[in-house]
């Protein structure tokens, strides 16, 4: 029987995420990258507020749980005490692009040597599917029941584009995790983001287009398709900054 390869940096436990949710995949990819870089002993993760609030139970390395939106500030504190460590935040779109906008912008502006994994599922997952700052135009959520109407609810924020304007942010890439091909390139981006931090170059972020089948009210398969058909239309995949960096 082939041995199941379980990343060392991931606990061998059942996660609470819904079927078809990207969080679990993102966790595995991050753990694999940490294993491959051999940094299990010096990685510190910052959990945020959202469905992944307790992912310190799933990752097998030091972590600190942060208040809603504040993970980049907490990561700043952790990193400044131990600059030799590799520090990352794991944040949803409500966390990063609404309540925590100031913290992410200024961590980037300071060129804080941390990495952010930004899970953009265009909705507030944990609180039952409210409109997020990244909710697409026309998208139905529990607080935009008629679909997001730009005349009332404004426009979705393109965080990768915004952050790439900031000089302190040296590596910015948007990826997706809706199929194997995209997961593999997402992994390459996450690895590079960590390497950029390890080289001391500045702030790095990978925005991950993600699924929330439960609150999108779609099957896992249809959710993957929804990412491809709708999210990737508005949120263009690709590197926004730092593709040329040799790390």
């Amino acid at each position: 029987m082939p041995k199941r390869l379980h990343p060392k940096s991931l606990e061998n436990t059942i996660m609470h995420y819904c079927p078809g949710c990207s969080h679990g995949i993102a966790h595995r990819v991050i753990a694999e990258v940490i294993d491959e870089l051999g940094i299990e002993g010096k990685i510190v993760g910052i959990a945020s507020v959202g469905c992944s609030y307790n992912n310190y139970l799933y990752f097998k390395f030091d972590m600190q749980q942060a208040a809603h939106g504040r993970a980049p500030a907490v990561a700043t504190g952790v990193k400044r005490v131990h600059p030799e460590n590799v520090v990352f935040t794991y944040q949803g779109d409500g966390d990063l692009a609404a309540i925590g906008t100031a913290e992410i912008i200024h961590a980037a502006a300071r060129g804080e040597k941390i990495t952010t994994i930004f899970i953009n599922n265009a909705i507030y997952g944990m609180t039952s599917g409210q409109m997020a700052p990244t909710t697409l135009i026309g998208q139905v959520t529990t607080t935009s029941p008629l679909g997001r109407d730009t005349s009332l609810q404004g426009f979705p924020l393109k965080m990768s584009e915004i952050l790439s304007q900031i000089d302190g942010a040296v590596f910015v890439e948007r990826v997706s995790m809706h199929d194997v091909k995209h997961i593999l390139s997402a992994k390459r981006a996450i690895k590079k983001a960590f390497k950029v931090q390890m080289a001391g170059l500045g702030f790095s972020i990978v925005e991950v287009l993600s699924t929330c089948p439960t609150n999108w009210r779609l099957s896992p398969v249809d959710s993957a398709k929804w990412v491809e058909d709708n999210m990737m239309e508005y949120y263009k995949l690709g590197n926004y900054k730092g593709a040329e960096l040799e790390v």
Partner: protein
Amino acid sequence: MPKKVLIKGNEAIGEAIIRAGCRHYFGYPITPQNELTNYMSKYMPEAGGVFIQAESEIAAINMVYGAAGAGARAITSSSSPGISLKQEGISYIAGAEVPAVVVNVMRCGPGLGGIMPGQSDYFQAVKGGGHGDYRNIVLAPNNGQELYELTVKAFDLADKYRVLVMVMADGALGQMMENVEFKDKETPYKIDKPWATTGSGMKRKKNYITSVYINPDELEAVNIRLQAKYKEIEKEEVLFEETDCEGADIIICAYGLAARITRNVMKLAAEESIKVGLLRPITLWPFPKDAVGSLADKTDVIMSVELSAGQMVEDVRLAVNGKKPVHFYGRTGGNLPTQKEILNEIKRVLEKEVK
């Protein structure tokens, strides 16, 4: 012999931070504590430490949470409106049991209020401020030397109990120039914090720091542990100063700047043969309940004097528990009560209460 240095209160706090071995300061400008942030920006890097001017008080307290969680001594300072913004972080720090220090150089409120000295953040500091059942140790210095010494002590208490310690000064103490003796040697602080998020180094199991427990039994167990710790602090760490209370006609309870003004009132009153005692809480939490309660055996009238509309007086009343009348005198808006005003109030109260 360390010699005395003439220094502003805010800068004395700054020197205490460095001499306590703290190397991580996170701030955001606000009057009347700017000298402290400025001092840190110069001397923290000189001491090999980290100074960050954060994007907000919210970010600053969360940087403290991160740095202290990672095992360092860490501090932020602000003044009243900024301290309001820090309350979320303070609650998280209490829940996660991370040792940290916060300085509040109080101004007056509510709202943007004014930049003149006040003591109207007493409720916020000692009754919670943030959400949940938690306590901060709250230290109330009343001169430059105490600003220095209690700031150093704040770090020791924070580490001893893994709690947040707040140093409550006010705009006047912060701005005042006084002679201060720096007693402690300047040595970066090292203490074993096996729970900290230092990176495992592959030598131990993972550490994680959190304040979230979805399971009610788990969260209740955390609360029970916190309350037991707070009981222990109430037993061990009460600090106060009692002056001329035995057989006094009236005893004033006052802390910080209000206590300083009261000391002058005591002299003024003595000239008119009125014996005024002073009970000065140094720890606002734990409140010196027993000492204040026993004032009822030493005098017939008790009065709380504050730069507020009457906040600490509630704790004084609780401690005295109806055994003797408890009065209040205070000024707000940044106005300081004059010695004469307080003396007049003392006379009025004595007239009323003592037949």
